[in-house]
């Protein structure tokens, strides 16, 4: 069945490659996936029905642009080129690429994992845009908190954002903090779930998918002049992936616009690399049915906290905002769990992700966010409305509504709570556990 499904999926995907293809064509940096630096663009805002006002903003955000965390990401590919160079195995393009890799590693030296200057600007711009889009939520009596996981690029993303807010509103009641104490609903762990992520069946599918989407020979021939040397000395798949990752990372640095690495790949190769990485993210954080389709539930305490807060804030008189800065992986799973736009897709067919619209650069790019905004007409308003800004745009929720993109809070809350409870019933029900 799998053998049949795969080719069909490929044909199907090719017939409709369209959207992802177009998006990659218009900005190839999207191929970086979760390392795509989301641009701050003008967004549409639908008028709030019934003159309701925002009173609570629950904001979950990825860090802004940062250098890759592992120094090896920069050093390892350069070392391969340097060695080949010392043996005269590089082509002219190979030499040129080595020079570019050298610039990249020098730029990132002693900065790995750190927020880039561009990331700092992005974080401030995003906060400025949020304040300008929802001015009613930023008033003198409001209260604004920010929390970050203990990870320097997340902490600095938070500090930059709150610095922007501080420059825009005086006086400002705020509380900014980074602590291991809030790990439980910022970056929860669930070993039982994650143990099932990459079981043998899933890996068999993924490895096959990887094989079908791998063709590094042309690239190697363009970089190295001796293919015997390549075969004997270079793990081409890894090198190719490392180069691809660096290509996608240049956009975050001051080298953007000065050098690039996308040009060494063909459009098709870029597409292949992205597909593999997207499928991997889907397996780990999306509703991939190969491993049971439950991985998004890793973020159930995050979602539950979101619901809990939504209810708790109803009693407040003045607006409040919670900003939370956490890993991209948290955002991938959270968006999938919340079924925002097309993120809830459940399939075992990794080829169908593009047509289904599950694309990592749309879900959790750097600077990406899920912002749930709560509206009411007065403090006792029984019909609170919510709207979710998903990476800036008004998102579709998996709930019926008569006023999209606004949704009735009670409906949203019931839908998500039932979803969480259904899952927890399978996990924690005594009878189920015995089976």
């Amino acid at each position, binding site marked *: 069945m799998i053998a049949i499904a795969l080719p069909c999926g490929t044909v199907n995907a090719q017939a409709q490659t369209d959207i992802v293809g177009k998006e990659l064509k218009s900005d190839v940096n999207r191929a970086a996936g979760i390392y795509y630096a989301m641009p701050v663009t003008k967004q549409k805002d639908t008028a709030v029905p019934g003159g309701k006002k925002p009173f609570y903003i629950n904001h979950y955000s990825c860090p802004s642009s940062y250098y890759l965390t592992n120094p090896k990401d920069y050093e390892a590919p350069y070392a391969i080129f340097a060695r080949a160079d010392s043996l005269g195995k590089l082509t002219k393009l190979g030499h040129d690429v080595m020079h570019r890799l050298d610039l990249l590693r020098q730029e990132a030296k*002693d900065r790995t994992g750190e927020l880039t200057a561009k990331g700092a600007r992005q974080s401030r711009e995003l906060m400025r845009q949020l304040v300008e889009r929802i001015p009613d939520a930023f008033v003198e009596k409001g209260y604004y908190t920010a929390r970050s996981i203990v990870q320097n690029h997340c902490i600095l993303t938070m500090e930059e954002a709150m610095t922007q807010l501080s420059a825009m509103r005086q006086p400002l009641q*705020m509380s*900014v903090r980074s602590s291991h104490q809030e790990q439980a609903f910022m970056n929860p762990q669930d070993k039982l779930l994650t143990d099932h992520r990459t079981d043998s069946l899933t890996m068999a599918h993924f490895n096959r998918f990887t094989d079908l989407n791998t063709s590094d020979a042309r690239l190697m021939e363009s970089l190295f002049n001796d293919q015997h040397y390549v075969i004997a000395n270079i793990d081409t798949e890894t090198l190719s992936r490392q180069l691809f990752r660096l290509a996608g990372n240049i956009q975050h640095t001051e080298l953007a616009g000065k050098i690039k690495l996308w040009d060494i790949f063909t459009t098709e190769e870029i597409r292949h690399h992205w597909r593999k990485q997207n499928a991997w993210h889907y397996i780990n954080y999306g509703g991939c049915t190969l491993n049971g389709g439950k991985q998004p539930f890793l973020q159930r305490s995050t979602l539950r906290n979101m619901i809990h807060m939504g209810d708790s804030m109803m009693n407040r008189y003045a607006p409040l905002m919670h900003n939370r800065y956490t890993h991209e992986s948290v955002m991938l799973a959270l968006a999938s769990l919340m079924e925002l736009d097309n993120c809830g897709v459940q399939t075992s067919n990794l080829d169908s992700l593009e047509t289904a619209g599950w694309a990592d650069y749309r879900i959790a790019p750097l600077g990406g966010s899920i912002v749930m905004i709560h509206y009411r007409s007065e403090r006792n308003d029984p019909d609170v409305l919510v709207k979710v800004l998903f990476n800036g745009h008004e998102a579709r929720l998996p709930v019926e509504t008569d006023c999209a993109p606004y949704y009735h809070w009670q409906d949203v809350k019931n839908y998500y709570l039932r979803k969480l409870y259904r899952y927890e019933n399978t996990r924690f029900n005594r009878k189920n556990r015995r089976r």
Partner: protein
Amino acid sequence: MNNNRILGFLFILHTSLFTLQSQTVIDLIREKPSYASCNYDIYPDSITKPLTPSPAGKRPFYISHYGRHGSRYISNRSGYDTPYLMMLHADSVDDLTPIGKRVLHEIQIIMADTENRWGELTSYGKEQQRKIARRMTKNFPEVLCPGARVKAISTVVPRCIESMGTAVMELLQAQPTLQVTMEASKRTMWYMNHQDNKLRRNYMTPEARKAYDAYIASRMGNSRLMAEIFKNPDIVKEIVDEEDFNYYLMKMGLFQANTHLWLNTYLQNLFETEELYRMWQVDNALWYIQHGACKLNGGRQPTSQRYLLRQLIADADSCLQLEKPGAQLRFGHETVLLPLVCLIGINGYDLATDNLDELEARGWWCSSIFPMACNVQFIFYRSSPKDKDVLLKVLLNEQEATLPIATDCAPYYHWADFRRYCMDKLSALNIF
């Protein structure tokens, strides 16, 4: 809240070799027990001594700052675990008095409160940073004027990053049009947090060890406390090290001044002022050997901050060329600030002696240098960008400080003199 917490603390007169000391260390500890905890002391926010007006015709135009993060939770659990485990062991052999049981209970509260927060900035720590930043804008509005540039740098340690962010946000509350950049990078660690391993390995020379051991011999134990907490102090000595127990329990008690448990002074009150004072003496001597110009180990420990001093001078050289340099704020650690102060010789802290008994009498009191949020600010003055005679003054914890060079306009010093003094000192070190 924090006005209350400091209510009752008299302001602390500066501890300089050159000023008359009206208070002794034991007086200070009596008024503010946390003074005995040295680097765990809270920032002396009650100081309100006015600053000398700007020198005639000149205006402040540049601030160069190095500050420690604000109050934090203790960095790791080993310090707390020491008395905690000893108490648990004593409890399991039923050797705790009723007071001992209460002490164990208090320790458990503190352990639970600190869990998952080791080393993190506390809310009081943020308040310290906010107040310092706010005072900076009030004291030097000419520097932090609309549109002025502020470059903030922090070490890569989260509590320092958070201190930086807190300070910057407060600056922006006071002056929203400041052009602020923030950076926390491994790239600046070579001067922001340089720990000289060679110096550090070698600070306890045999001479220093001998002098230190002799100095602390009569000061470490606390049999009174043992008798209060344990039913059979003599038997319990088999499982409880009296000196460690006394030292770490005291630290634990005093540390809470930094957290939201500051109102609970039960542990702190177990100790008499005299005992706190003795422990301060022990720590003060150790800090002096580690970071002061102590003759017992060659007096070179303060040179660990030679890179920072060079960078401060290089930054100033560069900023003096600008019309409006603004401010450079740096957020780091006390183990940097203390040797820096000793290296420059601010307030006579370059004191060089081989006699540990002299430290107290000659005013080398570490607690006055490096409480939480401690800071050194170099404020530069000139009449115009063309003015060649740039003056500076140094604020140690926001109090005007002295430098070991001649001046005709104290508390101001001629930048050229200070620069030459520092460069001479650095080149005489004969190391890079």
